[in-house]
């Protein structure tokens, strides 16, 4: 029987890190995710020799991840929006050097120091690069405490499979809320062989170099082409999404993370009123579920994208839809969470224009 516990999202994620065989965690306190560092600092010494270190900054954290991941170990850090901004340089280097690791952003309201309430304003930063150069993170968007745990395991699997940094893009609500969570059993450490890692040059092999520097432009272009080929593979193989009531859908909602939870309720409200609402929830934000959204868009009267930002993912939805249906957006910013009723009202305003049902 799997262990079932009532846990905060951040704590479930921390426990999952231990169970996923994470070798090293480097972090820096920031609300609303400090429970991860606290949980690991408290729990790890009781049962494991996993490295847990509070760094002097997020810049140091991400570079410690670089070192530990380059040494072939499962490494992870967590932060929230302003801290994730500080990590962008490191993420660009990690993506270029192709180091597998897990970075968690418990998104809060911005820009700037912003607020500590949940938001989704970091979608662009997470999915479109964030740091300099052409690179992609694999981005997972949990919408429950259960997924906060499960995405840690999945994230490490993706990271190791593709030698690519993976980001879990959560938010302050998913991080702070308590829910029932089924915890997976402890996995062994060092499951994945990493012959490329800097573990000391054994006599029978060439030296291993971890670098993102390729001074000859033609060499650098080759690296870029290889990375792009990898991202293409990821787009072909790893798209994940969840759909609710899309078989007979007439109006489609698209939302991820916390917004998707609220939109499930919006679907219910609509259905009670006889409006065939349905929902697609992207679980991977990169790779984005373009195909399913494109195919559903061919048979709907309209699409409403809902986010806790000014409209970021909606650009990807429009790219997927390519004009096949009208795509509207509704969002709140700065840490404000809309109610299902508020979203439904805006859906009515956008698509039904007060017409009698």
């Amino acid at each position: 029987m799997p262990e079932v516990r009532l846990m905060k999202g951040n704590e479930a994620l921390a426990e999952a890190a231990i169970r996923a065989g994470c070798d090293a965690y480097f972090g820096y306190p920031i609300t609303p995710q400090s429970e991860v560092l606290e949980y690991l600092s408290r729990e790890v010494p009781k049962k494991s020799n996993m490295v847990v270190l509070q760094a002097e900054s997020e810049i140091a954290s991400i570079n410690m991840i670089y070192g530990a991941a380059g040494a072939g170990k499962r490494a992870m850090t967590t932060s929230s929006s302003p801290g994730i901004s500080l990590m962008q340089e490191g993420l660009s280097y990690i993506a270029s050097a192709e180091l597998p690791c897990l970075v968690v952003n418990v998104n809060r309201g911005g820009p700037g120091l912003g607020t500590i309430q949940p938001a989704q304003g970091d979608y662009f930063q997470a999915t479109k690069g964030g740091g300099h150069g052409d690179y992609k993170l694999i981005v997972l968007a949990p919408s429950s405490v259960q997924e906060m745990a499960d995405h840690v395991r999945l994230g490490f699997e993706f990271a190791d499979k593709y030698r690519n940094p993976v980001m879990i893009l959560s938010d302050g609500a998913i991080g702070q809320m308590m829910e029932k969570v089924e915890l997976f059993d402890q996995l062994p450490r060092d499951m994945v062989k990493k012959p490329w890692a800097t573990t000391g040059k054994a006599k029978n092999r060439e030296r291993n170099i971890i670098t993102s520097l390729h001074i000859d432009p033609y060499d650098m272009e080759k690296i870029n082409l290889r990375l792009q080929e990898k991202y293409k593979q990821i787009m072909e193989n790893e798209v994940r999404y969840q759909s609710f009531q899309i078989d007979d859908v007439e109006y489609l909602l698209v939302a991820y993370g916390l917004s998707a939870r609220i939109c499930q309720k919006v679907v219910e409200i609509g259905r009670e009123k006889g409006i065939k609402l349905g929902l697609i929830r992207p679980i991977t934000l990169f790779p984005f579920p373009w195909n399913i959204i494109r195919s559903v868009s061919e048979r709907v009267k309209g699409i409403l994208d809902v986010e806790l930002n000014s409209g970021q993912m909606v650009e990807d939805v429009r790219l997927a839809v390519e004009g096949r249906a009208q795509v509207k957006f509704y969002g709140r910013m700065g840490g404000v969470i809309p109610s299902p009723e508020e979203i439904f009202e805006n859906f009515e305003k956008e698509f039904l224009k007060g017409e009698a049902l």
Partner: protein
Amino acid sequence: MSENTQLEIEEQNFLEEDICVKENLVFDRTQALTDVEMHYCPGCGHGVAHRIIMEVVDEMGIQDKTIGVAPVGCSVFAYNYMNIDMQEAAHGRASAVATGIKRVLPDKFVFSYQGDGDLAAIGTGETVHTVNRGENILIVFINNAVYGMTSGQMAPTTLEGMVTTTSPYGRDPKIMGYPLKIADLIAPLPGAYYVTRQAVNNAGNVRKAKKAIQKSFEYQKLNKGLCFVEIVSNCPSNWKMTPVESNKFVEEKLFPFYPLGDIKVPKEIK
């Protein structure tokens, strides 16, 4: 060259394979260095510094247990020359990267190799905290008082009055701040086990610097904590000097401000 001289040389017929015979060889290439030409400018201290570190690695027999971290700066390509596993860090972050490596591979020897811009400007935070945590690593700090790779801008260690491309009228501390003695700054921190300032400008100093590197690796083996070896070096190209002039500048200008010698030695050995 006269015809006669040419003839003599031909008669003597010095062929490489005749000279390079076992009984003539008194000195080997350092095995832990790769067999390639370095990109460093003529007279630059980097080559010698690389060499003494790798000689120590050879002599201690730890090539398979040593992981180096290269910085951003002239020695960004250190991994092309050091025949060991290496990681190339972002600018200033080498000691954080080294921390990450050492924490997960505590039985390996880990060192970072950093210049003054990298370690004492953009990476000051990482440097201070890595030292203060007493990470069991070696930081080799090459101080030549100038940004070399970007061609001669003012460094945190540039002397007062010293001319660089961004202090073309000489460094004026009232505007540009004072040269930073970072080794003295970190030495009092409890995590610092051994802090020393060395040079590679002449044979005697090279031997002393090598000894400091060797001690540092020995201390690391004994889990003693952080060792910091500053090497006061030169930059003939960006100082616009010949190698000989640059070494003279090192002795006459840099040594008075950055005096050589141990800054902190282990208490139990004092």
